[in-house]
Structure formats: C-alpha cells, structure tokens
C-alpha cells in the first residue's frame, strides 16, 4: 500500500510517502507564490526519496496545512491540527501533548491514548509566538534563524522582552542592542518571550506527558530549553523530522482512509 500526505504550510511545503509502514519524507520546500507549485515540488522530492517514478503510484493522498485545499493531487484534506496529532502519535505513541510552532501560528494539541485530538488551542491572528516573530528578530540581530536557535546562544543572564507584539518587540530589541547587551542574552530573552506566550496556550489544553514539539520552530534549541523550563517537563524528541510531522500525519490518515474505503467496497461487493 502506497499513500501520501502533503502539508502546505504558510512558509514551507512538506510531503511524506508511506510505503506499507515505512515513511519517506521529502525536502522542506520554501513556499512559492503558487501553492500548487509548492505542493508539486514537495511531493516530487518525497517521490525521489521513496524511489517512486510517478505520483500515480500513490493510491491515496491527504492535503493539510493552510493551503490544504490547493494541493492539486490530494483526494481530500484534513486540518493540520488533526494531522500533527496523528503524525506525532505515529512517531511516538507515548505523546499526549503536542506543541506545534509554525511560520505563522502556534498550536497546543492534546491527544488521547488512541492518538485522537481531544482539545486544541491556536494563537489569534498576530505573529507573537510564531516563526514570523523569530524571523523579525533574526533580521534585527543579523544572526539568521540559525543564530536564534543555536545552543551556543543560550545564556544564563537573559534580558526581559516585555512586548508580545513583534513590531513593538523589534523596537525593544533595537534598544537593547544600543544598550550593548550581549547577543546571547538578547536571544535567550527572545526565546523565553515566545515560550511564555506558547505555554499559556498549552496550559489551556493541559500539560500531559509526554510533551513533544513539532513545526519549523522545533529546531530552535533555545526555545526548546525555555519551554522545558516553563513547562517543568522534558520535551521528548521524535524519531523523525518534527517539521514534517503534519505531512506524516496526513499520510497516516491517507492509509486509514484507504483501508476504510477498501473495506466498504468489499462489503458492497460481498452483498452483491
């Protein structure tokens, strides 16, 4: 059985292909201005990784992410909230709380011991607590996103960033730079500021171990540490790329849907 998932996020496109129970993730593709093109590029990469020649070999595909309705080859679409829940559970069955921090939003997702989403919270429209916030800060600090997420920039003496709004926080950081505060102190302060915002969402769904982190911002080690401190628990790493979890979850859903479809067809044909 060959199935696939395509996660068309706000800043990147991801695809995963499942052959029997083995997952093949494609490269992370920066979003283009054409959602269908981003989806195709992501899926082409996954096809290569899976050693498949054509998308026609995939029997069922689920689209997810903001652009889920624009995935041209998807059989149907499912929200990224459900897909992150499904994907994280597939990767690590002990997971009960998922923190997904993407390019434009962050979500706290609670799942049951069967991997079904029971509750979720999502940030409102502003960029606070999202990848966009880090992008703005990385530009001001001229350190790139890698610098913001680097373990070498974790400080024991972080500054306090009081503004949640990325526009006001940018001014605050500029002031701190001019006060000659050290870059690691500022970066740790930024990560703590985002972590505070995210943890308030997580508290609303409840903090239940194991907790894991997904989405592009899961690669920010400073943020991970700040979250662990505030949550009072360890964030469990996943055995697959956490940025591709939405696409993986979509592929797992695709498998379930295909099996259900086949079972229904079998039931109908046996009645005939």
């Amino acid at each position: 059985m060959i199935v696939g998932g395509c996660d068309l996020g706000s800043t990147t496109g991801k695809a995963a292909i499942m052959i029997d129970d083995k997952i093949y993730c494609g490269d992370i593709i920066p979003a283009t201005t054409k959602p269908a093109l981003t989806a195709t590029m992501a899926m082409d990469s996954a096809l290569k990784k899976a050693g498949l020649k054509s998308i026609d070999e995939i029997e069922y595909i689920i689209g997810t992410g903001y652009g889920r309705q624009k995935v041209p080859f998807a059989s149907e679409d499912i929200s990224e909230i459900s897909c992150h829940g499904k994907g994280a559970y597939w990767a690590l069955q002990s997971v009960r709380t998922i923190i997904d921090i993407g390019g434009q939003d962050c979500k706290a997702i609670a799942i049951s011991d069967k991997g079904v989403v029971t509750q979720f919270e999502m940030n409102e429209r502003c960029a606070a607590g999202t990848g966009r916030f880090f992008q703005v800060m990385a530009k001001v600090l001229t350190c790139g996103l890698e610098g913001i997420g680097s373990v070498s920039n974790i400080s024991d003496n972080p500054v306090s960033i009081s503004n949640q709004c990325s526009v006001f926080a940018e001014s605050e950081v500029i002031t701190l730079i001019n006060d000659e505060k050290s870059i690691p102190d500022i970066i740790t302060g930024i990560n703590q500021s985002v972590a505070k915002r995210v943890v308030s969402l997580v508290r609303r769904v409840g903090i239940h171990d194991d907790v894991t982190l997904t989405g592009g911002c899961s690669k920010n080690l400073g943020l991970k540490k700040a979250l662990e401190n505030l949550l009072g628990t360890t964030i469990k790493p996943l055995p697959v790329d956490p940025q591709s979890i939405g696409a993986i979850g979509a592929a797992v859903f695709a498998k379930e849907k295909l099996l259900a479809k086949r079972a229904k067809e079998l039931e109908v044909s046996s009645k005939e």
Partner: protein
Amino acid sequence: MDLIKNSEVFRKLSGIAGTINNSGIENLKKEGGKVAGYTCSFVPEELLIAAGFMPFRIRGTGSKSADLANDYFQAANICSMVRHCFNHILTGEYDFLDAAIIGGGCDANRHILDNWEKSDAKIPFLHRIFFPHATGDLMVEYFRNQLADMKAGIEKHFGIEVTDEKIWNAIKLCNEARDLQKELYSLRKADNPPITGAETVDVIVAGNSMPKEEYIADLKTLLNELKNTKVEDKNYKARLMIIGPCHDDTSMCDIIEGLGGITVTDLTCFGAKIIYGRVKDSGADPLQAIAEYQVQDRPFCPKNLGAHPIISKTVFENIKDYKVDGIIGQNMLCCDTWGGELYILNKELKEAGIPMLRIEREYIPDSLGQIQTRVQAFLETITGGTQ
C-alpha cells in the same frame, strides 16, 4: 436545501439582509412613511411601530472600511461593529432614517449617539435609552421609565400621540413575528433541517429591516414552503450551536456548513435572543409589559448582572432540544462581557462533556483561513477523525 435557494420569498429576504436600504423602505418613504433606526435588541420595536415608524435595526452590512468612524472613536476598546455602523451613518447609508434610538446597553454602543451628535450626519430625531445592567423589579421600573421618556420624546418631536391601544396592537404584531420565527427555528430540530444556519441568519436579520406586516406575510409563505419540502439525508458531520454577541453575517455558518457540519441553533443577538418568548399582550400598562419582557424575561446579554444563570440554562436546554454536538463561542474583538461569559460557559460545558470552540473575530469577516482551520479541526475532534 436546494428548494430554498429557488424560493422567491427566501431570495427576497436574503437580499434585504445583505443590504441596508431596500425597495420596501423606498416604497414606504415614497408613500410618506417614516423609518426609525435603533441599535441593540433591547430597544423595543413595539414602541416604534406604535409611534408609526418602520423599525430598522442599524447594522454595518457591506461596510468596507471604518476609517471615517475611527476619527471619532479614539479609544481602542470600541468594537468593530460599532465602528462600521457609525461609518455607514457618516457615509450616508442611513440618510433614509427619520429617527434613531441609541441603546446604552454597552459603552461602545452608547458612543454612537455622542458621535452622531458631533458629526455632520444629521437626523431629525435622536434619542438615547439606557438599559439597566441588572434584573429585578426595581430595574423593571427603571426601564419602564426609560420607555416612558422615549415615548414622550417621540410624541413631542413628531406631534403625535402614542396611545396604549397602539402599543398593545404593536405588541401583538411583534409577538406574531416572534412566534413564526420560533416556528422556523423548531424546523431545525429535525435530523435533516429544511433550512441551514446561514439561511436562517438571513431570514431573521430581514425581520428587523422591513415593514413588520410584510415580513409576517413573507415568513408565513416561507414556512409553508419549508414544511412541504422533502429533505434528503445529508449525514452531517456535526450539529453545532453558535453563541455570542451581534454578528449579523453568515460567514461562520458558511464555514461550518461548507465543511459538512450544520448550525442548528444559536444564542446570538441577531438570532435566538431576539425571538425568545412573548411580550404580555394585555393588562393595565403596555410599557410595563415591554419592560418586564426586556428586563426580566430575556436578560440574555451578559452585561446584565444575574444574566448568566438564564444564559446557561437556555444553552443547555437548546443542546438537548436541537441535539447539539458542539458549541462555537463566537466573540467580537473588544466585547469583554461576552468574553467573560464564554469563559464561564466553556468551563460548564467542559464539565458536561460538550465540546466548545472559542473564536474571537472582527465584525466584518477577516482571517477566514485561520477560522476555517479551527472549525475544521473542531469538527474532526467531534467526529474523532472518522468522517
């Protein structure tokens, strides 16, 4: 459902809900009729009809910007509904009004009158009516006096007499409209309702935007059509109820229904809240009857102290009656009273095992992609991802 799309009377009502001025108003004005605008559902249409006006509930439908209004509303905590309504007033959308009664239900609403008086948008008669922020006999008496002031103001300005008989007749007329609207709602209790949530919003909004007798006749026709409609099995993913303040557009229902769910009831200020119950239609004092209805019988606005128990009771009754699977708490940005109410309700619903999704949005629909993601995930949560 397709039948209603082809229904001439539905198309008429939907058209009225989707605009401000309409041909019914234009015809009425040509014949010398008068129209009175009002904000907030606590302003009694009964008294306006008794005074010879066609009541029109002021909305911001179709507004593309609140730029002009923003010059007047400097405080950041004024909601976007008030801003868009006032922008329409400034751009002349409401020039057909002969009078306006501004309800002081919430502070944001109250400021419409303050700014209207300061602006160049002129209107022959502008009156403010205060609502008590509590319930009880003393508050009924207070509101009855407010109604008497409103009546006296209209009588003096327009040189008319609003007799008790005229008010009783208007009460009966509005009760008839409410009864028919409730009948429409009860059709939605069916497993496959003959009318969607989005369509219901249009029908109810039209009721405050056209002559009442004409609306009653149209609603009777529509009900007759709906009762004779054979509805196919739709197998909805979930039956939802919307709770919150005064959103008068169909966007939330459109999202829910576009994703395979259905909105079967609500507790909103352009929906079930305004069709609740009946005003007593006989007795010694019609103003007392209206005051008792507004203050005692339907204190559904969380600005009222003591409103929560009746809001909560009604929500739980509706969950049972309409077989509701989940609740969408749709708040208006800046509406702190509804924000607090939805927080309390969420806790109660959670304890009862009823899922609730809280969404805060502006009056004019925006960020629909994000809202759609949440609603879709909410439906998936209710169905356990099985559909």
